[in-house]
Protein backbone atom coordinates (compact mmCIF):
# COMPACT_ATOMS: atom_id res chain seq x y z
CA UNK A 1 0.00 0.00 0.00
CA UNK A 2 1.16 3.52 -0.66
CA UNK A 3 1.47 5.94 2.25
CA UNK A 4 0.46 8.88 0.10
CA UNK A 5 -1.27 8.93 -3.24
CA UNK A 6 -2.02 12.23 -4.94
CA UNK A 7 -3.90 11.83 -8.22
CA UNK A 8 -4.59 14.59 -10.67
CA UNK A 9 -5.01 17.37 -8.12
CA UNK A 10 -5.50 20.97 -9.19
CA UNK A 11 -6.11 23.99 -7.01
CA UNK A 12 -6.55 27.68 -7.77
CA UNK A 13 -6.65 30.87 -5.78
CA UNK A 14 -8.85 33.04 -7.95
CA UNK A 15 -7.10 33.20 -11.33
CA UNK A 16 -3.80 31.94 -10.01
CA UNK A 17 -3.40 28.23 -10.64
CA UNK A 18 -1.34 27.04 -7.68
CA UNK A 19 -1.42 23.35 -8.60
CA UNK A 20 -2.01 21.97 -12.06
CA UNK A 21 -2.90 18.25 -12.41
CA UNK A 22 -0.42 17.10 -9.80
CA UNK A 23 0.10 13.38 -9.26
CA UNK A 24 2.53 11.92 -6.77
CA UNK A 25 3.02 8.75 -4.73
CA UNK A 26 5.06 7.94 -1.65
CA UNK A 27 5.51 4.26 -0.78
CA UNK A 28 5.40 2.79 2.74
CA UNK A 29 8.53 3.68 4.68
CA UNK A 30 10.02 5.62 1.78
CA UNK A 31 11.78 8.94 1.69
CA UNK A 32 10.59 11.21 -1.09
CA UNK A 33 11.90 14.70 -1.66
CA UNK A 34 9.58 17.29 -3.16
CA UNK A 35 11.88 19.78 -4.81
CA UNK A 36 10.78 23.22 -5.82
CA UNK A 37 11.70 26.87 -5.44
CA UNK A 38 9.58 29.15 -3.26
CA UNK A 39 6.14 29.61 -4.74
CA UNK A 40 6.24 26.32 -6.67
CA UNK A 41 3.12 25.10 -4.86
CA UNK A 42 4.65 22.91 -2.14
CA UNK A 43 2.81 24.55 0.75
CA UNK A 44 -0.46 24.54 -1.16
CA UNK A 45 -0.08 20.82 -1.78
CA UNK A 46 0.58 20.24 1.93
CA UNK A 47 -2.44 22.34 2.85
CA UNK A 48 -4.58 20.14 0.62
CA UNK A 49 -3.15 16.90 2.05
CA UNK A 50 -3.85 18.13 5.60
CA UNK A 51 -7.31 19.28 4.55
CA UNK A 52 -6.69 22.88 5.44
CA UNK A 53 -8.08 23.54 1.99
CA UNK A 54 -10.38 21.17 0.22
CA UNK A 55 -8.96 19.43 -2.81
CA UNK A 56 -11.15 20.89 -5.49
CA UNK A 57 -10.34 18.34 -8.19
CA UNK A 58 -8.59 14.99 -8.06
CA UNK A 59 -8.07 12.70 -5.08
CA UNK A 60 -5.60 12.51 -2.19
CA UNK A 61 -5.24 9.32 -0.19
CA UNK A 62 -3.26 8.85 3.01
CA UNK A 63 -2.57 5.17 3.79
CA UNK A 64 -5.47 4.31 1.51
CA UNK A 65 -7.97 6.75 3.06
CA UNK A 66 -9.38 9.54 0.91
CA UNK A 67 -8.80 12.78 2.85
CA UNK A 68 -12.07 14.17 1.58
CA UNK A 69 -14.35 11.20 2.17
CA UNK A 70 -12.69 9.82 5.29
CA UNK A 71 -10.81 12.76 6.81
CA UNK A 72 -10.71 11.21 10.30
CA UNK A 73 -8.78 8.00 9.53
CA UNK A 74 -6.63 9.87 6.98
CA UNK A 75 -5.57 12.62 9.40
CA UNK A 76 -5.02 10.04 12.15
CA UNK A 77 -2.30 8.47 9.99
CA UNK A 78 -0.65 11.72 9.12
CA UNK A 79 2.00 13.72 10.94
CA UNK A 80 3.20 17.13 9.82
CA UNK A 81 5.93 19.62 10.56
CA UNK A 82 4.88 22.99 9.21
CA UNK A 83 7.14 25.54 7.61
CA UNK A 84 6.25 28.15 10.22
CA UNK A 85 7.05 27.46 13.86
CA UNK A 86 3.93 26.00 15.39
CA UNK A 87 4.77 25.06 18.98
CA UNK A 88 3.08 27.02 21.73
CA UNK A 89 5.93 29.24 22.91
CA UNK A 90 4.47 29.92 26.36
CA UNK A 91 4.19 26.23 27.21
CA UNK A 92 6.89 23.65 27.90
CA UNK A 93 7.93 20.95 25.45
CA UNK A 94 6.10 18.35 27.55
CA UNK A 95 2.90 20.40 27.61
CA UNK A 96 3.06 20.83 23.83
CA UNK A 97 3.45 17.10 23.33
CA UNK A 98 0.59 16.34 25.74
CA UNK A 99 -1.69 18.79 23.97
CA UNK A 100 -0.96 17.20 20.62
CA UNK A 101 -1.52 13.70 22.06
CA UNK A 102 -4.88 14.84 23.44
CA UNK A 103 -5.87 16.23 20.05
CA UNK A 104 -5.30 12.73 18.74
CA UNK A 105 -7.29 11.13 21.53
CA UNK A 106 -4.32 9.28 23.07
CA UNK A 107 -4.69 7.84 26.56
CA UNK A 108 -2.61 9.15 29.44
CA UNK A 109 -0.49 6.01 29.66
CA UNK A 110 0.26 5.95 25.93
CA UNK A 111 1.03 9.67 26.00
CA UNK A 112 3.58 9.33 28.80
CA UNK A 113 5.29 6.34 27.26
CA UNK A 114 5.42 7.85 23.80
CA UNK A 115 6.65 11.22 25.11
CA UNK A 116 9.58 9.56 26.85
CA UNK A 117 10.36 7.51 23.77
CA UNK A 118 10.18 10.35 21.24
CA UNK A 119 11.93 12.98 23.32
CA UNK A 120 14.85 10.63 23.79
CA UNK A 121 14.83 9.83 20.09
CA UNK A 122 15.20 13.51 19.14
CA UNK A 123 17.78 14.08 21.88
CA UNK A 124 15.87 16.61 23.99
CA UNK A 125 15.46 14.67 27.23
CA UNK A 126 17.00 17.50 29.24
CA UNK A 127 14.67 20.06 27.65
CA UNK A 128 11.38 18.33 28.35
CA UNK A 129 10.28 20.87 30.95
CA UNK A 130 11.84 23.89 29.30
CA UNK A 131 9.63 26.58 27.84
CA UNK A 132 9.62 26.46 24.05
CA UNK A 133 10.64 30.12 23.92
CA UNK A 134 13.99 29.18 25.47
CA UNK A 135 14.85 26.59 22.78
CA UNK A 136 17.13 27.22 19.83
CA UNK A 137 15.82 26.96 16.27
CA UNK A 138 17.22 23.47 15.80
CA UNK A 139 15.90 22.27 19.14
CA UNK A 140 12.38 23.49 18.49
CA UNK A 141 12.46 21.83 15.07
CA UNK A 142 13.39 18.56 16.73
CA UNK A 143 10.65 19.05 19.31
CA UNK A 144 8.19 19.57 16.45
CA UNK A 145 9.34 16.34 14.83
CA UNK A 146 8.84 14.51 18.15
CA UNK A 147 5.37 16.00 18.39
CA UNK A 148 4.41 15.06 14.83
CA UNK A 149 5.24 11.42 15.55
CA UNK A 150 3.44 11.13 18.90
CA UNK A 151 0.41 9.38 17.41
CA UNK A 152 2.51 6.99 15.27
CA UNK A 153 1.55 8.27 11.83
CA UNK A 154 2.25 6.27 8.68
CA UNK A 155 3.17 9.38 6.72
CA UNK A 156 5.20 12.36 7.85
CA UNK A 157 5.13 15.61 5.90
CA UNK A 158 7.90 18.13 6.41
CA UNK A 159 7.56 21.53 4.81
CA UNK A 160 10.97 23.20 4.46
CA UNK A 161 11.90 21.80 7.87
CA UNK A 162 15.48 22.99 7.73
CA UNK A 163 14.90 26.59 6.63
CA UNK A 164 16.50 29.10 8.96
CA UNK A 165 18.75 26.55 10.67
CA UNK A 166 22.53 26.62 10.73
CA UNK A 167 24.47 23.98 8.80
CA UNK A 168 24.99 21.70 11.81
CA UNK A 169 21.32 21.77 12.82
CA UNK A 170 20.24 21.19 9.24
CA UNK A 171 22.34 18.04 9.01
CA UNK A 172 21.08 16.90 12.42
CA UNK A 173 17.44 17.28 11.43
CA UNK A 174 17.93 15.53 8.09
CA UNK A 175 19.83 12.69 9.75
CA UNK A 176 17.14 12.38 12.42
CA UNK A 177 14.37 12.06 9.87
CA UNK A 178 16.23 9.43 7.86
CA UNK A 179 16.79 7.51 11.07
CA UNK A 180 13.08 7.65 11.86
CA UNK A 181 12.26 6.05 8.53
CA UNK A 182 14.48 3.13 9.51
CA UNK A 183 13.23 2.80 13.10
CA UNK A 184 9.57 3.72 12.82
CA UNK A 185 8.91 2.66 9.27
CA UNK A 186 7.22 5.95 8.61
CA UNK A 187 7.06 7.32 5.06
CA UNK A 188 8.36 10.86 4.57
CA UNK A 189 7.55 13.57 2.08
CA UNK A 190 10.26 16.16 2.48
CA UNK A 191 9.62 19.47 0.76
CA UNK A 192 12.70 21.57 0.19
CA UNK A 193 14.47 23.91 -2.14
CA UNK A 194 17.89 22.87 -0.82
CA UNK A 195 19.27 20.28 -3.22
CA UNK A 196 22.14 19.20 -1.00
CA UNK A 197 19.63 17.51 1.32
CA UNK A 198 18.87 14.93 -1.36
CA UNK A 199 20.90 11.73 -1.63
CA UNK A 200 21.38 9.87 -4.93
CA UNK A 201 19.13 6.93 -4.01
CA UNK A 202 16.23 9.18 -2.83
CA UNK A 203 12.97 9.41 -4.70
CA UNK A 204 12.51 12.93 -6.01
CA UNK A 205 9.60 14.81 -7.52
CA UNK A 206 10.27 18.24 -9.01
CA UNK A 207 7.42 20.72 -8.64
CA UNK A 208 7.54 23.94 -10.62
CA UNK A 209 4.82 26.52 -11.16
CA UNK A 210 2.21 24.10 -9.90
CA UNK A 211 3.26 21.20 -12.14
CA UNK A 212 5.24 18.03 -11.47
CA UNK A 213 7.97 18.19 -14.10
CA UNK A 214 9.57 14.84 -13.38
CA UNK A 215 9.75 12.08 -10.77
CA UNK A 216 12.23 9.30 -10.14
CA UNK A 217 15.36 8.64 -8.13
CA UNK A 218 17.78 11.53 -7.79
CA UNK A 219 20.39 9.47 -9.61
CA UNK A 220 18.15 8.88 -12.61
CA UNK A 221 17.01 12.49 -12.81
CA UNK A 222 20.58 13.76 -12.62
CA UNK A 223 21.72 11.34 -15.32
CA UNK A 224 25.23 12.22 -16.34
CA UNK A 225 25.09 15.73 -14.84
CA UNK A 226 24.39 16.76 -11.24
CA UNK A 227 20.93 17.00 -9.70
CA UNK A 228 21.32 20.77 -9.57
CA UNK A 229 22.09 21.05 -13.27
CA UNK A 230 19.17 18.77 -14.10
CA UNK A 231 16.89 20.85 -11.88
CA UNK A 232 17.98 24.12 -13.48
CA UNK A 233 17.55 22.88 -17.01
CA UNK A 234 14.13 21.35 -16.26
CA UNK A 235 12.72 24.39 -14.52
CA UNK A 236 14.58 27.04 -16.47
CA UNK A 237 15.29 29.07 -13.34
CA UNK A 238 18.49 31.03 -12.86
CA UNK A 239 21.19 29.46 -10.75
CA UNK A 240 21.05 32.20 -8.12
CA UNK A 241 17.45 31.38 -7.23
CA UNK A 242 18.39 28.15 -5.48
Amino acid at each position, binding site marked *: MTALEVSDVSHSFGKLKALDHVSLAVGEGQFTALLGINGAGKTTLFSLITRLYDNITGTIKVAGYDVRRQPGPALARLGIVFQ*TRSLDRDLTVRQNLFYHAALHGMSRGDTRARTAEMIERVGLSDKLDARVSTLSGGQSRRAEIARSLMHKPRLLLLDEATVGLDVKSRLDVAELVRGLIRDEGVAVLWATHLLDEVQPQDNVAILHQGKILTAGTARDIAGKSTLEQAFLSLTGVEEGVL
Partner: protein
Amino acid sequence: MSGTPLGWRGRMRALYGIIWREALRFAKQRERFLSALVRPLVWLFIFAAGFRSVLGLSITPPYETYVLYEVYVAPGLCAMIQLFNGMQSSLSMVYDRETGAMRTFLVSPYPRWFLLSAKLLAGVVVSILQVYAFLLVAWFWGVDPPPLGYLTVLPALVLSGLMLGAMGLFLSSTIRQLENFAGVMNFVIFPMFFASSALYPLWRMKESSILLYDICRYNPFTYAAELIRFGLYGQINWLALAVVVGATAVFMGGAIYAYDPSKGMLGRKSG
Protein backbone atom coordinates in the same frame (compact mmCIF):
# COMPACT_ATOMS: atom_id res chain seq x y z
CA MET B 1 -1.49 0.59 12.55
CA SER B 2 -2.49 3.98 13.86
CA GLY B 3 -3.24 4.28 17.57
CA THR B 4 -5.77 7.07 17.26
CA PRO B 5 -9.19 6.21 18.69
CA LEU B 6 -11.73 8.05 16.57
CA GLY B 7 -14.76 7.31 18.77
CA TRP B 8 -16.19 9.22 21.70
CA ARG B 9 -13.53 8.14 24.15
CA GLY B 10 -10.88 9.79 22.01
CA ARG B 11 -13.03 12.86 21.51
CA MET B 12 -13.45 13.33 25.23
CA ARG B 13 -9.69 13.22 25.61
CA ALA B 14 -9.35 15.83 22.90
CA LEU B 15 -11.98 18.02 24.57
CA TYR B 16 -10.19 17.71 27.89
CA GLY B 17 -6.87 18.56 26.25
CA ILE B 18 -8.27 21.67 24.55
CA ILE B 19 -9.80 22.99 27.78
CA TRP B 20 -6.64 22.13 29.72
CA ARG B 21 -4.47 24.08 27.28
CA GLU B 22 -6.77 27.11 27.33
CA ALA B 23 -6.79 27.19 31.13
CA LEU B 24 -3.02 26.72 31.23
CA ARG B 25 -2.45 29.58 28.82
CA PHE B 26 -4.80 31.76 30.78
CA ALA B 27 -3.03 30.97 34.06
CA LYS B 28 0.29 31.93 32.47
CA GLN B 29 -0.98 35.26 31.23
CA ARG B 30 -1.48 37.10 34.50
CA GLU B 31 -1.96 40.47 32.85
CA ARG B 32 -4.84 39.09 30.84
CA PHE B 33 -6.56 37.87 33.97
CA LEU B 34 -5.90 41.13 35.76
CA SER B 35 -7.27 43.29 32.96
CA ALA B 36 -10.27 41.00 32.63
CA LEU B 37 -10.96 41.62 36.31
CA VAL B 38 -10.09 45.32 36.47
CA ARG B 39 -12.31 46.30 33.53
CA PRO B 40 -15.68 45.42 35.13
CA LEU B 41 -14.48 46.59 38.53
CA VAL B 42 -13.76 50.06 37.14
CA TRP B 43 -17.32 50.14 35.89
CA LEU B 44 -18.62 48.94 39.22
CA PHE B 45 -16.52 51.20 41.45
CA ILE B 46 -16.50 54.41 39.43
CA PHE B 47 -19.24 54.44 36.84
CA ALA B 48 -21.86 52.90 39.10
CA ALA B 49 -20.98 55.20 41.99
CA GLY B 50 -21.53 58.26 39.85
CA PHE B 51 -24.60 56.90 38.15
CA ARG B 52 -26.33 55.81 41.30
CA SER B 53 -27.36 59.34 42.24
CA VAL B 54 -28.60 60.19 38.75
CA LEU B 55 -30.58 57.10 37.98
CA GLY B 56 -33.54 56.01 40.06
CA LEU B 57 -34.61 52.43 39.59
CA SER B 58 -38.10 51.24 40.23
CA ILE B 59 -38.72 47.67 41.27
CA THR B 60 -38.16 45.50 38.20
CA PRO B 61 -38.04 41.72 38.14
CA PRO B 62 -36.13 39.76 39.32
CA TYR B 63 -35.54 42.26 42.12
CA GLU B 64 -38.13 42.30 44.88
CA THR B 65 -37.14 45.57 46.45
CA TYR B 66 -35.46 48.75 45.38
CA VAL B 67 -31.88 47.97 44.57
CA LEU B 68 -28.77 50.07 44.39
CA TYR B 69 -27.40 50.76 40.95
CA GLU B 70 -24.34 48.61 41.68
CA VAL B 71 -26.62 45.66 42.24
CA TYR B 72 -28.46 46.33 39.00
CA VAL B 73 -25.35 46.70 36.87
CA ALA B 74 -23.41 43.68 38.21
CA PRO B 75 -25.07 40.99 36.01
CA GLY B 76 -24.57 43.21 32.96
CA LEU B 77 -20.90 43.44 33.83
CA CYS B 78 -20.73 39.64 34.07
CA ALA B 79 -22.07 39.54 30.52
CA MET B 80 -19.52 42.17 29.50
CA ILE B 81 -16.69 39.98 30.82
CA GLN B 82 -17.97 37.17 28.64
CA LEU B 83 -18.37 39.46 25.65
CA PHE B 84 -14.75 40.61 25.91
CA ASN B 85 -13.54 37.09 26.49
CA GLY B 86 -15.52 35.71 23.56
CA MET B 87 -14.18 38.34 21.18
CA GLN B 88 -10.65 38.00 22.49
CA SER B 89 -10.44 34.24 22.16
CA SER B 90 -11.91 34.25 18.68
CA LEU B 91 -9.58 37.03 17.59
CA SER B 92 -6.68 34.96 18.83
CA MET B 93 -7.96 32.25 16.50
CA VAL B 94 -7.64 34.67 13.61
CA TYR B 95 -4.02 35.34 14.55
CA ASP B 96 -3.45 31.64 15.10
CA ARG B 97 -4.73 30.93 11.64
CA GLU B 98 -1.79 32.80 10.17
CA THR B 99 0.70 30.87 12.25
CA GLY B 100 1.10 27.15 12.68
CA ALA B 101 -0.86 26.99 15.94
CA MET B 102 -4.21 26.92 14.18
CA ARG B 103 -2.98 24.36 11.66
CA THR B 104 -1.79 22.09 14.43
CA PHE B 105 -5.26 22.32 15.89
CA LEU B 106 -7.07 21.66 12.63
CA VAL B 107 -5.05 18.57 11.65
CA SER B 108 -6.60 16.72 14.55
CA PRO B 109 -8.54 13.78 13.08
CA TYR B 110 -11.81 14.79 14.73
CA PRO B 111 -14.49 16.68 12.78
CA ARG B 112 -14.20 20.45 12.49
CA TRP B 113 -17.53 21.10 14.20
CA PHE B 114 -16.34 19.10 17.18
CA LEU B 115 -13.00 20.92 17.38
CA LEU B 116 -14.61 24.34 17.10
CA SER B 117 -17.21 23.48 19.73
CA ALA B 118 -14.48 22.24 22.06
CA LYS B 119 -12.51 25.44 21.52
CA LEU B 120 -15.63 27.43 22.23
CA LEU B 121 -16.33 25.49 25.41
CA ALA B 122 -12.74 26.02 26.57
CA GLY B 123 -13.22 29.78 26.16
CA VAL B 124 -16.47 29.60 28.14
CA VAL B 125 -14.74 27.81 31.01
CA VAL B 126 -12.14 30.58 31.17
CA SER B 127 -14.80 33.30 31.03
CA ILE B 128 -16.73 31.71 33.89
CA LEU B 129 -13.62 31.69 36.06
CA GLN B 130 -13.32 35.43 35.39
CA VAL B 131 -16.98 36.05 36.21
CA TYR B 132 -16.74 34.31 39.57
CA ALA B 133 -13.61 36.25 40.46
CA PHE B 134 -15.53 39.44 39.66
CA LEU B 135 -18.58 38.36 41.67
CA LEU B 136 -16.36 37.66 44.63
CA VAL B 137 -14.93 41.18 44.62
CA ALA B 138 -18.37 42.65 43.96
CA TRP B 139 -19.69 40.87 47.03
CA PHE B 140 -17.41 42.97 49.19
CA TRP B 141 -18.84 46.02 47.43
CA GLY B 142 -22.35 45.19 48.52
CA VAL B 143 -23.54 43.19 45.53
CA ASP B 144 -24.87 40.22 47.47
CA PRO B 145 -27.38 38.06 45.64
CA PRO B 146 -28.81 35.05 47.51
CA PRO B 147 -26.09 32.43 48.16
CA LEU B 148 -27.91 29.87 46.04
CA GLY B 149 -27.84 32.41 43.20
CA TYR B 150 -24.12 31.77 42.72
CA LEU B 151 -25.03 28.21 41.76
CA THR B 152 -28.15 28.93 39.70
CA VAL B 153 -26.30 31.53 37.64
CA LEU B 154 -23.87 28.86 36.40
CA PRO B 155 -26.09 27.39 33.64
CA ALA B 156 -26.97 30.93 32.56
CA LEU B 157 -23.26 31.77 32.33
CA VAL B 158 -22.57 28.64 30.29
CA LEU B 159 -25.30 29.55 27.80
CA SER B 160 -24.46 33.23 27.53
CA GLY B 161 -20.75 32.35 27.26
CA LEU B 162 -21.53 29.95 24.41
CA MET B 163 -23.58 32.57 22.62
CA LEU B 164 -20.99 35.32 22.90
CA GLY B 165 -18.13 32.95 22.09
CA ALA B 166 -19.96 31.60 19.04
CA MET B 167 -20.68 35.16 17.96
CA GLY B 168 -16.98 36.00 18.20
CA LEU B 169 -16.08 32.88 16.26
CA PHE B 170 -18.60 33.71 13.57
CA LEU B 171 -17.62 37.38 13.26
CA SER B 172 -13.89 36.68 13.22
CA SER B 173 -14.25 34.01 10.58
CA THR B 174 -16.37 36.09 8.24
CA ILE B 175 -15.47 39.75 8.62
CA ARG B 176 -11.90 40.47 7.70
CA GLN B 177 -11.96 44.06 8.91
CA LEU B 178 -12.37 42.83 12.46
CA GLU B 179 -8.81 41.65 12.69
CA ASN B 180 -7.73 44.28 15.16
CA PHE B 181 -9.12 44.78 18.58
CA ALA B 182 -9.78 48.51 18.23
CA GLY B 183 -12.21 47.78 15.43
CA VAL B 184 -13.91 45.14 17.52
CA MET B 185 -14.23 47.56 20.44
CA ASN B 186 -15.82 50.25 18.28
CA PHE B 187 -18.06 48.20 16.10
CA VAL B 188 -19.01 45.25 18.26
CA ILE B 189 -18.32 45.52 21.97
CA PHE B 190 -19.35 49.11 22.68
CA PRO B 191 -22.56 49.16 20.60
CA MET B 192 -23.67 45.81 21.96
CA PHE B 193 -22.90 46.73 25.53
CA PHE B 194 -24.43 50.20 25.52
CA ALA B 195 -27.51 49.36 23.47
CA SER B 196 -28.65 46.71 25.90
CA SER B 197 -30.25 46.28 29.29
CA ALA B 198 -26.83 45.83 30.92
CA LEU B 199 -26.50 49.42 32.13
CA TYR B 200 -30.12 50.53 32.43
CA PRO B 201 -33.50 48.83 32.34
CA LEU B 202 -35.20 48.90 28.97
CA TRP B 203 -38.19 50.90 30.20
CA ARG B 204 -35.75 53.71 30.92
CA MET B 205 -34.57 53.50 27.36
CA LYS B 206 -38.14 53.60 26.11
CA GLU B 207 -38.72 56.92 27.84
CA SER B 208 -35.93 58.57 25.94
CA SER B 209 -36.16 56.94 22.51
CA ILE B 210 -38.44 54.33 21.00
CA LEU B 211 -35.94 53.60 18.25
CA LEU B 212 -33.17 52.93 20.74
CA TYR B 213 -35.54 50.80 22.75
CA ASP B 214 -36.23 48.70 19.67
CA ILE B 215 -32.53 48.35 18.95
CA CYS B 216 -31.97 47.13 22.51
CA ARG B 217 -34.82 44.68 22.15
CA TYR B 218 -33.24 43.14 19.06
CA ASN B 219 -29.77 43.02 20.57
CA PRO B 220 -28.96 39.45 21.65
CA PHE B 221 -26.62 40.84 24.31
CA THR B 222 -29.66 42.20 26.16
CA TYR B 223 -30.88 38.64 26.57
CA ALA B 224 -27.51 37.35 27.72
CA ALA B 225 -27.49 40.03 30.43
CA GLU B 226 -31.08 39.27 31.45
CA LEU B 227 -30.49 35.53 31.55
CA ILE B 228 -27.58 36.10 33.93
CA ARG B 229 -29.55 38.65 35.97
CA PHE B 230 -32.45 36.26 36.54
CA GLY B 231 -30.12 33.31 37.08
CA LEU B 232 -28.29 35.17 39.81
CA TYR B 233 -31.59 35.43 41.67
CA GLY B 234 -32.60 31.82 41.13
CA GLN B 235 -35.08 32.56 38.36
CA ILE B 236 -35.41 31.79 34.67
CA ASN B 237 -36.27 34.39 32.07
CA TRP B 238 -37.78 32.17 29.38
CA LEU B 239 -37.65 34.71 26.59
CA ALA B 240 -33.97 35.39 27.32
CA LEU B 241 -33.30 31.65 27.40
CA ALA B 242 -34.97 31.12 24.03
CA VAL B 243 -33.15 34.02 22.38
CA VAL B 244 -29.75 33.00 23.75
CA VAL B 245 -30.15 29.38 22.65
CA GLY B 246 -31.42 30.45 19.22
CA ALA B 247 -28.64 32.98 18.69
CA THR B 248 -26.01 30.43 19.76
CA ALA B 249 -27.28 27.97 17.17
CA VAL B 250 -27.24 30.58 14.40
CA PHE B 251 -23.75 31.92 15.21
CA MET B 252 -22.29 28.46 15.67
CA GLY B 253 -23.78 27.22 12.41
CA GLY B 254 -22.24 30.20 10.66
CA ALA B 255 -18.83 29.63 12.25
CA ILE B 256 -18.76 25.94 11.36
CA TYR B 257 -19.70 26.82 7.81
CA ALA B 258 -16.95 29.41 7.63
CA TYR B 259 -14.31 26.97 8.89
CA ASP B 260 -15.41 24.13 6.61
CA PRO B 261 -12.53 23.59 4.18
CA SER B 262 -14.81 23.00 1.22
CA LYS B 263 -17.06 26.01 1.70
CA GLY B 264 -15.82 28.73 3.97
CA MET B 265 -13.11 31.32 3.85
CA LEU B 266 -10.19 29.01 4.61
CA GLY B 267 -10.36 27.61 1.11
CA ARG B 268 -10.46 31.02 -0.51
CA LYS B 269 -7.48 32.43 1.28
CA SER B 270 -4.26 32.49 -0.65
CA GLY B 271 -1.12 31.16 0.97
